[in-house]
């Protein structure tokens, strides 16, 4: 563990915290353009978060401490995840403490806590949301793990920096296994980040909600933390996708400051394109019934398993 490593680690987390709401704002803007609406300001998510922090928190009667602890736990788990995923550089000391499997574990921890908090108040919508979230999660989580396994089989390691180092330094070619994994990963990210076609982040119809139904009872700083954590989750997933499938431009280990700094514009550029594509997918697809979700996610799971098998068969 070097000082430079720790610094680049902290820089990366700080960047993730700062950029995550921007990414959400950018996706919302693209969505608005694509559907011919006038776009909200790019910085709206920041203003929302600031506004929420200054308000009085309202906690439902009958809420247990789990309800109040959850926003912090979810936020903490997402910060941890941001520290593991190589977005700027692969020189991440913290990534030694948690590899790709632990990353999935962190996401699962956040999901379980938020589902428990949703059940804590004892309202109809809360438990509905919790049930649906766990329902989506039980298929999305294995699919995500399978995608990560495919990458680990290629690189012979489950540590994300090593995976990225290996993938970034191969000659450029299209690997069939990674192609399958990429499709699967896109589908999983849509589901996990409560995006169309599985969920709709801007819905106002309670009966179709998943993620929003769980956080209905949150207000003020708790809501702000949850929103920020959701933005971080989207950011993390985007970075995982970029790191696995477009790892070019990420600075290699060794504490080279210039390279790390130079990776930032590349990251922002890639995120902008990724955000636009996400908005495009959302604009082009319709939200599906909740019971179509298993088909969707089952497909993702099978594709990911197929990617692993293709990897073993073709050795790539």
């Amino acid at each position: 563990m070097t000082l430079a490593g720790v610094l680049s680690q902290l820089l990366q987390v700080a960047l993730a915290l700062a950029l995550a709401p921007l990414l959400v704002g950018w996706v919302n803007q693209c969505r608005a353009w694509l559907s011919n609406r006038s776009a909200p300001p790019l910085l709206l998510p920041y203003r929302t978060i600031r506004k929420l922090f200054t308000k009085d928190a309202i906690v439902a009667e009958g809420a247990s401490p789990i309800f109040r602890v959850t926003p912090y736990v979810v936020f903490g788990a997402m910060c941890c995840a941001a520290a593991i995923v190589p977005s700027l550089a692969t020189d991440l000391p913290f990534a030694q403490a948690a590899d790709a499997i632990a990353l999935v574990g962190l996401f699962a921890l956040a999901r379980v806590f938020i589902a428990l908090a949703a059940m804590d108040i004892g309202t109809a919508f809360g438990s509905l949301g919790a049930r649906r979230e766990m329902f989506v999660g039980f298929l999305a989580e294995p699919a995500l793990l399978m995608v990560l396994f495919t990458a680990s089989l290629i690189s012979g390691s489950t540590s994300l920096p090593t995976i990225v180092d290996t993938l970034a330094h191969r000659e450029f070619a299209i690997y069939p296994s990674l192609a399958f994994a990429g499709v699967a990963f896109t589908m999983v990210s849509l589901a996990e980040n409560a995006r169309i076609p599985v969920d709709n982040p801007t819905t106002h119809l309670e009966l179709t909600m998943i993620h929003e139904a769980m956080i209905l009872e949150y207000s003020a700083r708790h809501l702000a933390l949850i929103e920020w954590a959701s933005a971080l989750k989207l950011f993390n997933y985007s970075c995982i996708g970029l790191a696995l499938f477009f790892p070019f431009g990420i600075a290699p280990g060794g504490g080279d400051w210039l390279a790390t700094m130079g990776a930032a514009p590349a990251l922002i550029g890639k995120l902008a394109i990724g955000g636009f594509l996400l908005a495009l997918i959302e604009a082009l697809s319709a939200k599906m019934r909740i019971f179509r979700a298993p088909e969707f996610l089952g497909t993702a799971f099978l594709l990911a398993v197929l990617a692993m098998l293709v990897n073993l068969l073709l050795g790539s």
Partner: protein
Amino acid sequence: MDLTPLELVIAVIVAWLAIGTLGLARPHALRFVGRVLFCAGAVVGLVLAVVALIAIGQPPQSTVLPLGLPDLPFHLRLDSLSAFFLLLLGAAGAAISLFSAGYFRSGEGTAPGLLCFEYHVFLAAMALVLVADDAYLFMVAWETMALASYFLVTTDHRLPEIRRAGFLYLLIAHVGAIALLLCFGVLQGGSGDYTFDAMRSVVLTGAWPSVAFSLALFGFGAKAGLLPLHVWLPEAHPAAPSPVSALMSGVMLKTAIYGLLRVAFDLLGGQLWWWGVIALALGLVTALFGVVFAAVQSDMKRLLAYSSIENIGIIVAGIGLAILFKAYAKPLLAAITLTAVLYHALNHAFFKSLLFLATGSVLHATKERSLGRLGGLIHRMPWVAWLALVGTLAIAGMPPLNGFVSEWLLLQAFLFTPTLPQSFVNMLVPLAAAALVLAAALGAYVMVKFYGVVFLGRPREPNLAYAHDAGPFERAALVWLAAGCILLGIFPVNVIATLDPIVVLLIGSGANIPADNWLLLAPINEDRSSYSPLIVLVVIVGVVLLTVQIVHRYYHGRVRRAPAWDCGYPLQTPRMQDTAEGFGQPIRQVFEPFFRIERELPSPFDSAPRYRMRVHDRAWRALYEPIAKAAEFLARIAGLIQQGRIGVYLTYSFCTLLALLVFVR
């Protein structure tokens, strides 16, 4: 006085038997039995755990007890494998005994003193199974264990359904025991010597090793709850008092795992690769089956029983993988897999006992086992609820608790596979990994359902407002188990270093996981994979505290309490929360072919419409009912010759004599 560990273990067994017998002396003295005898039993369990922990690293010791039949003394042996399972028994047993001290009440059913006797005989029999070194003692102890637990399961023997559950348990236990008897018969290989030492030296040829392994898998599988012999588990666990369920699920199932490991790795010299494939497939099917059924249960103890089936499935799948690796001469991978298996067995003993005991407290406080009538207990029973939360997160495989570590290790073992020589097996292993991951993810679903419905939300029944928290003994037991879950999760490197002698004993070489860096768990090397739960925990807690500090410093921390908003819907009642059935409904819909569903729908003209739905296990109709019918049919045929008149029987004797004279002479 200088006693060897084996002598100490014998002393522990004798002490447990003595405590049990004391209970018989004053069967109705509830306070004496609870406060004195069960507490003494807990202390003895703790002693056993310490002795076993010391004995894991020591060379095997054996002794011969001058008991048993003439010319057939009891052989005892304590090696690392026995010691590990004794540690599990002692550590979990101590907590369960402590819990029992405050749990049992006098009432209908077995008297407390008798219960104490059965309970301690059960403990002693399990310990004896683990140190037995010949087939004779093993079977005697195994049957004693089955009988003692049968009587414990039928504590409330006045209820017919409990008697039924107990009978089913006894039946399957004995079917399994027959297979084990045959297995030992094969293993002695015609030498006539039933000590395990002799079995180790016998070289079986041809198909015999496979026959022995199949019989062992069947016999131990019946005790462990492998598909399709799992049917007794979801019946017996809810029927038994909670500490007994905890003991059965947490510890007794592990004796079956112990037996399987003993036969597959120790008594049978060489392993064949396809044994591994069978165990792996059977384990995964069991795991998936168990978790899917757990998701649709509405009785909390049945839910946990199905979850035990899931965990046993994962353990057996791991054993299968270890056999596969060992058969292909990959000792390092086999060692890592086996480490994961043992780790998971230990973890399961802790978190499953914790959860079963928590259901016991809930049961006492509310007299209610059905998830549909619970809810909101975190306000009334904070101790139980918070400690159960630890168990819930651990069993759901959340970092940094212990369930995650063993799953992580097992997945690492799966990921190392593509070096196997056979491409068919190579393809199979990733599929197995996918199934394992799916089971683990569904496990989280199940545990959220369990915890959310029991402890969170609003009370679904008015009488839950009078629920009381657990007493001091119960709390202490739960704290001990929860602490175990946390410590096993945070210090994996130390635990794995402790497990190493066992792995060396069974595989021949250790997992080579460096123990010098206690902070970082890194099998093979750090570049491949590494995990440090302590750092993860510290970072998460650090971020949480920092966030709390910052938020409260720069923004005011005022909190207002108000009625739940729920999108402004008025008239919220607790009945509008998800019931257990509601929460499990998506799983029921997705996995519909797994279940046999019985629906009772109201007609449009019903004045009092009723909707009823029951989910059944397909194994009953597909397997057990035909067997029962066949047995009945055979009995009826046999009944034909039974006429009940002495003249007829004399004719039979006469005919037999004639036949013997004609054919034998």
